[in-house]
């Protein structure tokens, strides 16, 4: 009996490592431990074992059974490992590129606009929008640009025909003409008329000039305009805003300076220059970046604010110009061609 058990184990140890498939395994398992298997057959001989030997033989049989099961388990787990490997196939090449689409990209004008509005939001400016089709009142009259002002020439401004009707662009008077806004300052007027001071807004948006397209001019471009109206707003506050904006955008060592200038809707008015290190393709100590000033009392009066009570400042700049400075782009038309090699460079 003892010898038979040993022979059985030896046979299992020899055969089971060679089993390659599940059916073979199941057949082997039946052969060894199944109801008609060899171990079962041996166990059936227990009856003929003398009584005094039974404990010893029983122990031997149990040991053999355990050992046999261990062989079977080993074979099974070896098979399973093989099966998983077969299901997975060979190892991947981790250096192959993903065939899935790369993420998209934001246009650089969007990036610059968002960066500016983020900076301004931190100091309480809310982003507002206004119509691109405007009327003469909002674009010119209310901004102290009288009807004989050169800016209103059909030479410089796109007008819509007298017959044009817009359902959602309100006119101040029935006879004014529709036009494409030449600056985002028109949003100032709509905001002042709608809002209650204090007001602190930034309005980025598309504007239009009737101009020859070249490396620095485009029929439409984008501006960003800030307006702050409150009590006791001063020139010093305006300078602080500009210093804050450009230090946030370009680093602490950035400087701004004001040069006196003229705009119909601010008094005093200034042009803003900035001086910053590390701007690509800039070789001048000061670069003109925008215009600003204190809201002219005429503008306040026209929208029904008492200029004795309310004061404010406005600042405007071109987004293309800023993006060109930041990224070192030298032709404004590049923004509007949408060559994917351009679009992919910034985000």
């Amino acid at each position, binding site marked *: 009996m003892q010898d038979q058990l040993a022979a059985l184990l030896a046979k299992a140890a020899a055969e089971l490592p060679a089993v390659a498939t599940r059916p073979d395994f199941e057949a082997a398992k039946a052969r060894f431990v199944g109801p008609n298997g060899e171990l079962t057959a041996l166990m059936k001989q227990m009856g003929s074992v003398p009584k005094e030997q039974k404990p010893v033989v029983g122990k031997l049989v149990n040991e053999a059974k355990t050992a046999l099961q261990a062989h079977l388990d080993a074979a099974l787990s070896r098979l399973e490992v093989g099966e998983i490997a077969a299901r997975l196939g060979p190892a991947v090449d981790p250096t192959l590129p993903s065939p899935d689409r790369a993420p*998209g990209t*934001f246009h650089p004008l969007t990036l610059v606009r968002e960066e500016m509005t983020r900076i301004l939001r931190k100091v309480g400016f809310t982003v507002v929008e206004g119509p*691109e089709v405007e009327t003469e009142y909002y674009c010119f009259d209310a901004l102290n640009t009288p009807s004989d002002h050169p800016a209103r020439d059909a030479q410089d401004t796109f007008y819509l025909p007298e017959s044009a009707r817009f359902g959602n662009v309100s006119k101040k008077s029935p006879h004014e003409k529709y036009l494409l806004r030449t600056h985002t300052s028109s949003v100032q007027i709509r905001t002042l008329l709608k809002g209650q001071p204090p007001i602190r807004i930034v309005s980025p948006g598309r504007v239009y000039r009737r101009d020859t397209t070249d490396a620095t001019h485009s*029929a439409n471009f984008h501006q960003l305009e800030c307006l702050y109206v409150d009590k006791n707003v001063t020139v010093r506050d305006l300078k602080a805003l500009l210093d804050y904006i450009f230090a946030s955008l370009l680093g602490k060592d950035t400087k701004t300076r004001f040069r006196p200038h003229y705009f119909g809707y601010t*008094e005093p008015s200034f042009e803003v220059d900035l001086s910053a290190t590390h701007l690509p393709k800039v070789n001048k100590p000061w670069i003109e970046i925008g215009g600003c000033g204190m809201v002219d009392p005429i503008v306040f009066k026209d929208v029904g604010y008492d200029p004795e009570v309310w004061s404010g400042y406005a600042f405007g700049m071109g987004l293309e110009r800023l993006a060109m400075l930041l990224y070192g782009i030298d032709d404004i038309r590049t923004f509007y061609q949408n060559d994917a090699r351009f679009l992919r460079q910034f985000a």
Partner: protein
Amino acid sequence: MKLSRSWLQDYVDLAGISDDDISRAITFLGFEVEQVIRTGAPAFNNVVVGHILTRDKHPNADKLSVCTVDVGFAHGGVRTIVCGAPNCDTGNRVPVALPGAILPGDFVIKEATVRGQPSSGMMCSAKELTLAEDAAGLLLLSGSPEIGAPISSVLPAGDVVFDIEITPNRPDALSHLGVARELAAWFKKELHYPAVSFTPASISANPRPDLLTSVRVLADTDCPLYTATVVTGVTIKPSPDWMQQRLAAAGLRPINNVVDIGNYVMLEYGQPVHAFDATKLANGEIIVRHATEGEKITTLDKKERTLSAGMLVIADAQHPVVIAGIMGSADSGVSADTLDLVLEVAFFKRQSVRATGKRLGLGSDSSYRYERGVDVHSLDEAAHRFIDLILAHAGGAVAGPIHRVGSTIPWEREITVTPGYINEKLGFEIPAAEMRAALESLELVVTREEPTEKRGPAWTFSIPSWRDDLDRPIDLVEEVVRLYGTEKIPVSVITAPGLVGNDDPIVLFNRKVADALVGQGFNECVNYTLRAGQEIAAWTTPAHVESLALANPFVEDQSHLRPTLVSGLLESLKLNQSRGVTASRFFETGRVFLERNGQLSECVAAAFILAEETGERSWRPREAADFYTAKHHAETIAAIAGIELGRQPTALVAAPAHGWQTGHAAVAGDIKHGWTATFGLVDLAHLKALGITGKVYAGFFAIVSEKVTADADRRSFKPFSLQPAALRDLAVVVPATTSASEVQKAIAKHARAAAGTAFALESVDIFDVYTGKGVPEGQQSLAYALTFRASDRTLNDDEVNAAFTKVQTDLTAAGYQIRK
């Protein structure tokens, strides 16, 4: 405007102030310096006239000479100078830079030894003195100038020209005198006016009524003041060198003394003037009148111009001789044999000059000044200066009194301001005395001064007539800060009181759309709003195209507002394809202009395109985009606007499909009701016409700008059942033209009814669309998964089966064929 430094020097002493400092002053006074141009020789110290006495070959260098040069007793007499120029010949007089001289480029001249020979100075070429580009040899001084004389006294004087931009509010600065006034204020110097000796009282010669019989102004609104003076016996010749040089520096070509003097007075005072040849005025008459329609004049530039009624002209008895304030006629002007002059100095209304100039497309230095506004109160002074200079440089005599027609309302303007007010507006303190001095330096005069309680003295300033732009206290704030120096505005920390509103919903919409589509691999584009009419004609009705046309387009391909963003994106795709750049997904957000209830509406829009032909090859290709990809992205965009596109009635685009491929593109919504969405395949014929290869799917969503809302209302939580669901699959055979959503709705309706109140139909989801074997031709099989669930218990098979059977029975009764 071009300003000559030497000319400015006549009115304000700028000696010792560097060009850079003047440039800076002009800049911070508020006039942009566009260019600084240096002409002639700069001022040199220690550069004198030398006379070459001998020339010998340098013993140690082939190309050098050793010369002895007499530089005058005061400069050490005869010096030995080594020279490399070929023309350092004996007898020549040349500029010699003595040791101690500093030549341009900070080149310091010292005693030196050149190849073993001592050299005491340097003989100079024109290039070394920045007189010319050419350095071929020494500058030979002609006319035997005095030996030892400073070179500056021999060479034509150098000048510096500041080309500056004058803002439209400052017509007073369109003159040398005006800018000199500003510089005098900045540098705290005195302003010297030209000495004018002519007075009407000084007229001695006999009147010549034969030359100027009458001056009549028939249009006194457009010409409030007209003066004319007869000067007889002049000699036409070139103007003096200094005048020619100044005019040339200012960018005007010298013509003859009379014309040049006219230009000189204009550039000096900012007052345009004009000189007629008196004998060329028919009947000796001057009539200031409006042109009659169709009247003709050939202007100085030799062009015949046809005038319209209302244009102001100066005419003689027969025809117009000047378009008032703009340009004279070719034949009434001064010529070489002119003897007698009529000098015109007049004031024309800016609106009149502007309107005429604009209509004729004609401008001049004169009209530029009239359009911006000349100071009528300085007119007489300029007229007297004009006469002075004519008499001085053209000779002749004034014949008879000045004809003066019209009048001016006496100028009077006062502004009262306090230092306290100015400081409040500025936000920092400038001492009161400094403010007052600044304003006084601009010739504002304090006429009254009264104390105030808190704001210091209330000064009442009288405003000079040339500063029409100063009208209110705030205008004086600008004058003070200008002269104080904007660079001195103190630095401070931004104050931001809590004042935070919500960003405009449109801003949020655009931002979210961009975020979502960038996340889906789209590249954001920015295209022009103005499109060619022909381009947008493919995308909308002819009537709509017509309504989008601008009144005054600048170029043909940018003549219309855009009704869609898709055409721009296709243009971008085309550009990339033609450049061989692989890219297939583009989007844009922006405004479009749609027809709504018979009017245009400005709409907020977003669009994308997906090109099938990416040009890319992949080692492991992914599934290609199709209609449903476009639908997915359109749903994403609509959802951002708060619209659940999947629940909206959606139909194939109807013919004419306006850019879309019929049968493969769909539309939902209608801009009439506030929004619209179109998505699917772009018309293949249109793509072919555009030269785009491969199919392109696109989506376009637009919403009327005022209907874009902020975030949707906060939703309340709906509890859901934790019990297991019961699933049943159901296939229905319907005609291929029946829409899936219609079948889905029918199944849902019957299933909901079958479940009754006992339990709930949770969802009906399509999971298979099948045509082919087992389904008759022209029919399709649509398979749906029905999910039932109870809120309180596990459903048992019997109740679910009963409901499911009823659904099938009801559907069959409703005409649907259940596929077993």
